[in-house]
């Protein structure tokens, strides 16, 4: 495998990209003979493609690596060979005017098994509280969530968004992001619709209260905040 890379590297040199290749290695500080693996520029391009969620154009890659576009194309050719179909679990693809890494379709069954399972990490208390507020009060704004919880919910909200359990549903009249739960949420919690959310009365510490759920949650949240202040 490393032989293939090296061959390409040499090949690129012979093709007349030699001067750029030298410049690349100088800039990036890698020894000219990267016998153990990919040439330095190809490694950096690989890392950038790995990190980026969007396709990257040759020009963007050249900008970021401060190498010439020719050198970047050579590096991409090295990577294309490395990630040729059937060789790796990852493929290099040219999409929408740019390059991107994508998982090999052969892994789809395994990926589905992995991601369709509830993640091993259960919801943290902060996440469960945030999700519950969104589920029962939706649509609900971020400031409201913070008021009910008494602390910022940014991190919990980000995780829930990341896990696809909640999503943005526009903005409130004051410009705050508002949230609702997703179809994924219903699926993971085994609910056919939001009507099937369990009745809160079972866990209600003061069931005789007649006021609306939202109003009561806000009141309790404010009481806690005032208490802590």
């Amino acid at each position, binding site marked *: 495998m490393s032989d293939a890379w090296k061959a390409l590297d040499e090949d690129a040199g012979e093709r007349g990209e030699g001067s750029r290749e030298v410049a690349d290695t100088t800039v990036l500080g890698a020894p000219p003979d990267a016998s153990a693996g990919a040439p330095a520029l190809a490694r950096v391009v690989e890392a950038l493609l790995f990190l980026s969620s969007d396709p990257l154009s040759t020009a963007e890659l050249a900008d970021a690596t401060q190498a010439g576009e020719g050198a970047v194309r050579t590096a991409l050719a090295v990577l294309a060979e490395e990630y040729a179909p059937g060789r790796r679990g990852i493929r290099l693809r040219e999409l929408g005017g740019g390059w991107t890494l994508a998982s090999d379709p052969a892994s789809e069954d395994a990926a589905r098994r992995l991601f369709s399972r509830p993640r091993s990490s259960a919801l943290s208390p902060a996440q469960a509280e945030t999700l*519950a507020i969104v589920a029962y009060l939706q649509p609900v704004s971020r400031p409201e969530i913070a008021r009910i919880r008494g602390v910022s919910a940014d991190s919990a909200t980000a995780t829930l968004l*990341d896990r696809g359990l909640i999503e943005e549903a526009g903005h409130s009249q004051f410009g705050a992001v508002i949230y609702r739960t997703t179809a994924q949420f219903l699926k993971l919690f085994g*609910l056919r619709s939001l009507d099937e959310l*369990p009745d809160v009365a079972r866990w209600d510490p003061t069931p005789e209260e007649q006021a609306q759920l939202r109003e009561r949650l806000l009141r*309790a949240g404010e009481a806690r905040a005032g208490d802590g202040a």
Partner: protein
Amino acid sequence: MTLAGLELDLDVFSGPFDLLLTLVLREEVDLLELSLAEVVLAYLDHLERRPNSSRAAHEDEAGRRARDEREELDLEAATEFIVLVAALLELKSRLLLGGEEDELLDIEPQEAAEELLARMLDAKRFRAAAAHLRELLAAEHGVRFRTAPPPASLRRAILHTADPGADANQLGEAIGRLLAMPPTINVLHIAVNRVSIAERLAHLRALLRRGSFSFDEAVRGADRMTVAVTLFALLELYKQGEVEWKQEESFGEIAIHGPSRETPRAPLALSGASAGAVG
């Protein structure tokens, strides 16, 4: 500049700081009657006074320079002072609050020293651990992780087969936790008038429901603390986008009303607000 040189002239005590400390630890001076703020002020005076008052007129240049060097703030003594005053403050706050830790109040100098020592060791441990964590993080410099979501096609596939493994009851439980009102804390033993932000928030929201009002109306007849807390609550409401306000001139009346999308947010002249309200 040692702490022994710090002479105090306070209401309840006159003499060197070291002696005061001993007397407090032996409960011969009542900590409750001792103004620690006065002790701190005396120490600051002490620091400021020393170089000038002690400089003799007949000193030669070399002698003065040597003296100046010696008289630069002695960090060790300053640190010691801070640690000791902090310990006194904690003892005093325990005395004031009373409660379950009463037995700790009868501590001997020996015990006081042990407790301080334990605290300093803890602080040292975790400062060192913090330095270690920062080194770990620095060693990971340049390591990045991929955060891209799975491709859309895979996401659809995942949704299709997702296992209903999560328990919706945990959401009900979470709501139950959030519905619980906090226990009312008995604050009768604290003489200070307590004003809570929650209370002032509720007050402002109640006024808001009736329409617009002025800040003066909102704090009519209130003491300074209440005025300050009300202003804080008002800022909180503004931050949440629940109110808007207008002040025509400095120290003028602050008109408060609910949000309207047309009116742009105007900055509040804070000095005017507090002066107008308190005065």
